């Protein structure tokens, strides 16, 4: 299902800066991700987490710096680059007035998936929404909508999945479902970057933790090297240090 492991980093970010006037939202981010890594970025509001994710997703232009997924440069090859991406944000990205199947079929067609209907049904099955395929997306509950959103993001079988505060607005049950799905995605060796300010949720899913404060990556560590019990303490230390 996945492309074979590449020796070079899967995603590489070099010297990434984003400024608005004299305000710097991102101040030189360097980051390499190996294939299959699950990075969770924490940080307070306004630290630049969403900005970073939006730049990786090509929604914002960096002021300077480079991003590559394997060989596809964001500047020279935006179409190829985007074809490898999937994104889940706290917005659902689905059309209220289309049915679940129509929504997925539309996006699948945009991504040039071979058999859009087949692929859409397959994904609805995977997120347990197959029985509701004829429902209008606007009539879904919040949790179901989130599952649809995840299915949507997976249509093009993305190699890099970006999650922007996916837990926002979810009740405990829906959050549990999401947690399960993230585990499943991770098991499938997808490279994942998640942005959240929910430490507990982030800890349970990710393999690598990063802390972003004031546009700088002040901490980056594999999870096995982190003591989960003291991570919260560490997090607040890092915040105050800046």
């Amino acid at each position: 299902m996945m492309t074979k492991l590449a020796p070079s980093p899967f995603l590489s970010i070099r010297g990434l800066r984003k400024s608005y006037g004299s305000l710097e939202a991102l101040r030189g981010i360097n980051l390499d991700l190996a294939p299959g890594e699950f990075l969770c970025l924490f940080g307070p509001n306004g630290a630049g987490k969403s900005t970073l994710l939006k730049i990786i997703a090509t929604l914002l232009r960096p002021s300077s710096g480079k991003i590559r997924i394997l060989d596809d440069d964001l500047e020279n090859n935006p179409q190829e680059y985007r074809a490898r991406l999937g994104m889940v944000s706290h917005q659902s990205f689905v059309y209220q007035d289309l049915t679940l199947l129509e929504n997925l079929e539309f996006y699948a067609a945009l991504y040039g998936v071979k058999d859009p209907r087949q692929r859409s049904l397959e994904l609805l099955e995977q997120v347990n929404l197959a029985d509701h395929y004829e429902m209008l997306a606007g009539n879904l509950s919040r949790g179901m909508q989130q599952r649809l959103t995840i299915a949507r993001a997976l249509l093009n079988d993305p190699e890099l999945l970006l999650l922007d505060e996916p837990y926002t607005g979810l009740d405990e049950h829906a959050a549990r479902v999401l947690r399960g799905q993230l585990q499943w995605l991770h098991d499938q060796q997808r490279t994942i970057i998640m942005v959240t300010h929910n430490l507990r949720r982030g800890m349970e899913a990710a393999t690598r933790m990063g802390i972003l404060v004031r546009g700088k990556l002040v901490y980056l560590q594999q999870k096995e090297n982190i003591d989960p019990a003291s991570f919260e303490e560490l997090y607040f230390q890092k915040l105050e240090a800046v």
Partner: protein
Amino acid sequence: MSSLRQILFLLGKDLRIELRKKESLISMAFFGALILVILNIAAGIGKQVDADTGAGILWVAIIFSAVLGLGRVFAREKENGCVAALLISPISPGEIFIAKALVNFSLMLLSQLVLVPVFYVLFGSHFNADPLALVPILLLLNLGFSTTGTLVSAISAGTRRNEVLLPILLFPLILPLTALAVKATAGALATRPFSERLEQLEPMLAFCLIFSAAGYLLFPFAIRED
């Protein structure tokens, strides 16, 4: 992957939603007909309007009703952040522009299928002009209005005052096009020869070409966040 196919998918998606909800079409046709009636009252009930006034009345109704549909096209994409989903898909902003302009074009054409007959019923008893003579004028104006309108509505939908800003930004830009359309229509209603109308139709075509090109080039800036 052909971009033509992606444009058609996007167009098909919008038309499907529209045919399902019919919210834009119904309000466009209804509001347009309402304006025709209001202008009939303004012109004096029971008075016959001449070709010049009639042409003006028709176009005021069409332009005002078209703005209603235009505002919805991007508002719908903004609802669940779908614009972002389109922007991170392989489709290019230029293709989104073409698809959205085509959606607006179709909506205007469909609403005119109602408005033009209503116009003839209310005002046209003494115009013995062939309604088909209006077709080239309608098509050109629709084209110019949809391309300019798609660009401007992307801008106004990016602000918090979409409904108010859209006509304020759009109408001054398309004033010349509308004025030419009014004059050409007056010629058609008064059954003047077609060759005389070319004098308006040619600059209208030029307007459409210039604004399609400008819209295509500027749209990526209008739709992105930064």
